[in-house]
């Protein structure tokens, strides 16, 4: 694999679903690139559009919302 650009991605993970899923991915040692910067929210519904914009304004390359 060639050296690829490694982006920084802002991630919002729902406490009960995706965050737990991400924990489980860890427990199962599924490997993925270290691109995410995770913010835990109680629900993906908590993710205000303003947070997404704030993410881009701060310089993230993408925003990933999972719940």
């Amino acid at each position, binding site marked *: 694999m060639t050296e690829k*650009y*490694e*982006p920084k991605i802002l991630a919002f993970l729902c406490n009960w679903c995706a965050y737990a899923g991400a924990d*489980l*991915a860890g427990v*199962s040692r599924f490997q993925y690139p270290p691109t995410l910067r995770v913010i835990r929210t109680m629900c993906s519904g908590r993710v205000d559009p303003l947070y997404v914009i704030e993410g*881009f304004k701060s310089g993230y*390359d993408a925003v990933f*919302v*999972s719940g």
Partner: protein
Amino acid sequence: MEVVAKLLELAGIKRDRVQLRRVSAAEGALFAQYVNDVSETTANLGPFDKDKYQLQLAAIERACNTRRLRWLIGMEHHLQNHDNVYETRTNPDLVIETLDEAIESEYHKGLLLEVLKDGPLSVREMAEKTGMPVYTVSKRLNELESDGMAEFDSHEGTTPKFISLAA
């Protein structure tokens, strides 16, 4: 999230930069897969230049803060899934159409207010700075005026200049 994605698209930011995925507590493998996908997609899009989109992001932020959009964001779910007072379901296409129209209008207005922040500008100047066609600028300016968000300021020669009344 749909609203944001649409706004970003209007601003020329690829909507792939915002990704929404469902992952349950039991789907560790799926989560890892999604991260791989998103990372890959984003890598292909290349770095996001936040400075280049400064104006656009500010405009989107403004748009998102408008009551109209927030109302629509809040109502979207309700409109699509519940009956209205006449016990009929609003036509989903109509909801989307309304939303799209609102998004576009609020975004444009956001852009105008952003460029007007630094002082009075003419319609042509606004069109130049925002990249919108002159006609659209006039139309949105008109809307702003009727909302009480902008007003005529002065003439520079024959060219009328406008100022923002928004915070």
